[in-house]
């Protein structure tokens, strides 16, 4: 039986709820853990950034932690700021910001918005430090892994977070000859630098280069990503290894959908848009769509945008938060936990997804898995999710987006569409995803 080594660097020591990539790592690793010994002898590893080596680790504590969080009641996705931190910030402002400035509503508003982002960053940084401390403790306690020729190493997460990791991996592979398998999420940064902050360009592009050059099998999460991989390889004269598209799970966690509205501002009838607020997700199109409706005298339901505040989206946030006509018409919710997110999926009229480019488009799949209609951008991988059964618009066309929103304001049309998708859409479970991954690895 082959030894299969699963990298858990992304989730080992993580204390909060899992984000997108972490959910994939956890979801597949859990299935491999539960099926250990059937097809593979599964062992778990993680990378120590301090020692530049991989070490053995265990999955049980991660699963125990994740399940206790699932079972628990509403919990913030990141730890909240403590009362003492808040009072320290207020004290600082009273001391250092002149009263004339503090009492100017415009300045107060801008400062508040900036501070909110700053506090989010601080909170995440504090959380990250916790993770780092935890990982240091773990890495000191575990044995370095000794790779052998017969091993298969499976990387499910984000090795680009630590550029040394990919190098150590490729060099260990060159030395021992083990087989390397990696999940590839997208090539948006290399091919669409305008949609991302430039700081990651070099690291991410170099990671994709080494992943193609060093892997025996790549598992892109969509045909679109698979095509982008081929384009990248061809442009740079790389030999593309075998690729096999895997479909990520979109199954709904049971028992979490009815646990209460996550924000009192949410109307009874609302349209949802889920995904990090960043330039790539093209939320600005939704603002234009709503302004277009306003101009044409069309009353639209409230738009609830759920997602943490990412980069290069300041202009959009400013527009929404300072346009009196959009007050409570478009609301932005960050720091929503899994239960809150489930509530939004379960209670929205339908969702809208205007993204410029995706590796897959999980919020679209999750909307469908929740039995709700999604109208979406026709870009990149999104049409792979449910083919012709989704109504698409161009991510550059606010008129087309508005037309589709208006179409599904008609309760009859919405109901018919919902009934059809409930009949046709087959949600993907983590077991399904695991089975695809396991078959691919078996064939190596």
């Amino acid at each position, binding site marked *: 039986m082959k030894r299969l080594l699963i990298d858990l660097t992304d989730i080992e020591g993580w204390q909060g709820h899992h984000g997108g990539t972490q959910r994939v790592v956890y979801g597949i690793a859990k299935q491999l853990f539960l099926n250990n010994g059937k097809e593979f002898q599964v062992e778990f590893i993680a990378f120590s950034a301090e020692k530049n080596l991989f070490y053995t680790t265990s999955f049980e504590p991660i699963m125990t932690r994740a399940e206790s969080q699932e079972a628990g009641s509403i919990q913030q996705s990141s730890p909240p700021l403590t009362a003492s931190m808040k009072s320290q910030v207020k004290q600082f402002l009273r001391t250092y910001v002149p009263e004339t400035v503090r009492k100017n509503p415009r300045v107060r508003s801008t400062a508040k918005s900036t501070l909110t982002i700053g506090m989010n960053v601080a909170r995440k940084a504090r959380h990250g430090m916790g993770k780092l401390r935890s990982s240091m403790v773990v890495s000191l306690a575990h044995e370095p892994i000794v790779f052998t020729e017969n091993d298969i190493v499976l990387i499910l997460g984000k090795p680009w977070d630590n550029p040394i990791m990919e190098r150590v991996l490729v*060099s260990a592979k060159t030395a021992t000859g083990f087989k390397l398998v990696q999940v590839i999420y997208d090539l948006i940064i290399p091919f669409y630098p305008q949609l991302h902050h430039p700081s990651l360009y070099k690291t991410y592009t170099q990671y994709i280069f*080494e992943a193609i050059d060093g892997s025996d099998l790549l598992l892109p999460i969509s045909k679109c990503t698979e095509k982008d991989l081929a384009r990248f390889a061809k442009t*740079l004269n790389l030999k593309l290894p075998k690729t096999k598209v895997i479909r990520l799970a979109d199954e709904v966690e049971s028992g979490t959908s009815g646990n209460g509205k996550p924000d009192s501002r949410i109307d009874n009838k609302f349209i949802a848009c889920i995904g990090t607020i960043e330039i790539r997700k093209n939320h600005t199109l939704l603002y234009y769509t709503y302004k277009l409706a306003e101009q044409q005298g069309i009353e639209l339901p409230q738009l609830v945008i759920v997602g943490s505040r990412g980069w290069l989206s300041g202009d959009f946030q400013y527009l929404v938060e300072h346009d009196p006509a959009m007050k409570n018409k478009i609301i932005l919710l960050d720091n929503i936990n899994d239960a809150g997110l489930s509530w939004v999926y379960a209670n929205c009229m339908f969702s809208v997804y205007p993204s410029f480019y995706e590796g897959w488009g999980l919020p679209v799949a999750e909307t469908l898995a929740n039995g709700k209609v999604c109208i979406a951008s026709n870009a990149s991988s999104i049409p792979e999710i449910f083919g012709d059964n989704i109504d698409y618009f161009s991510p550059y066309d606010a008129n087309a987006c508005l037309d589709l929103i208006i179409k599904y304001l008609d309760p009859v049309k919405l109901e018919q569409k919902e009934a059809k998708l409930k009949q046709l859409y087959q949600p993907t479970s983590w077991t399904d995803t695991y089975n695809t991954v396991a078959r691919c690895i078996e064939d190596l």
Partner: protein
Amino acid sequence: MKSKKTILVLTTYPLKNPQHGGQKRTDAIVNAYRSSNFIVKNCAVFYKGFYSSYGEDDVPLSASSEQLIRQSPLTGDIVCGEAIIKDPKVKRKITELLTNFRPDIIHIEQPFPYLGLKPLLAELQLSPKLIFGSQNIEAPMKRDILEGAHVAKEQIAEAVKIIDDIEAELTNDSELVAACTVEDLKAHAKLKARKLVLAPNGIAKVETNEQSTQHWQKIFADLGVTKTALFIGSAHPPNWTGFLDMVGKGLGFVPPDARLVLAGSICDYFEREISSDSLTIEDATFWLRAYSAGRLSEPRLGALIKQSDVIILPITEGGGSNLKTAEAILANKKVVATTHALRSFEWFKDFPNVWIADTKQKFIESIATALKTPLVERTQEQAKQTEKVLWKNCLADLITEVKSL
């Protein structure tokens, strides 16, 4: 009556610390004349902005001529040639040299110095025998370079006409034309050269030392590199365009434990033009598989050549024969080259360890194959044939002809 003939060698670049091909060739010719019992002086009319070290007979341009070069650096050789008659300081120095040294023969390396020398000789009523040391057919090459730099069409036409005319005049006025390749010989024959001799480019034996060898061993060991393909080039624009045309910036064909090593002043181009911080996938990944060794001393370069597995010659334009090709032949390494790179060394293409490739795809595939293919030993006959590339053998016919002038 003088017992030994005197030869003045005129260039538009000094020969001190020769770096680029033109300097190395002319330096070898001067040394060959000297060792054949001629009394030789070499003089360069040159721009100090391009060359910082020079000899006692070399004449830097005055400020007014320098200004012309700064305005149009790619036609600097024309400015240097014309300065012999137009730049008063240069004219005075060259006049002193001609009247004091009284050369029996003036060897003009490349046609440019003749632009000013011809009217000056007429003015001084001197008529030494002339040898035209041709390195290329210059006019079409200059056209390519200027077009590549997007110079205005009128300026290109003017420069090309000046060079075309002076190449023809010097070919006609010379007792002997020495050309690098058979093709160049034919071109000069069409221009009605009186006497022609083939003097292909050659190479001196690689000199190196243990310290330099250890230097590279350590660098590549630290990088985890076990194989290297070497590209040596000067900052001559065709070297850069040749690399882009035949190799390009997508280096995914280079294995993780290998590097494409760049050496010579061509590295300035690479370092300036390819930044891993720029937002293109080629630039962001280029330096993962390339290594810039920079400008190197002879022992360092020698050690780098000795250590390399493959030498690449992505040469796509230019006349003349190539010093880098001769270097590669003498180095006894695996070689990946264009057909163009083997001009005058056509016999080498049947040697073992040689891959000829004239398309980008074939060229990069050949590099990848060469990196993983073991080196085949040359036969004794082939090893002997290799010595043809040494300067003393390349210039033997030229010396014989000059002695008979």
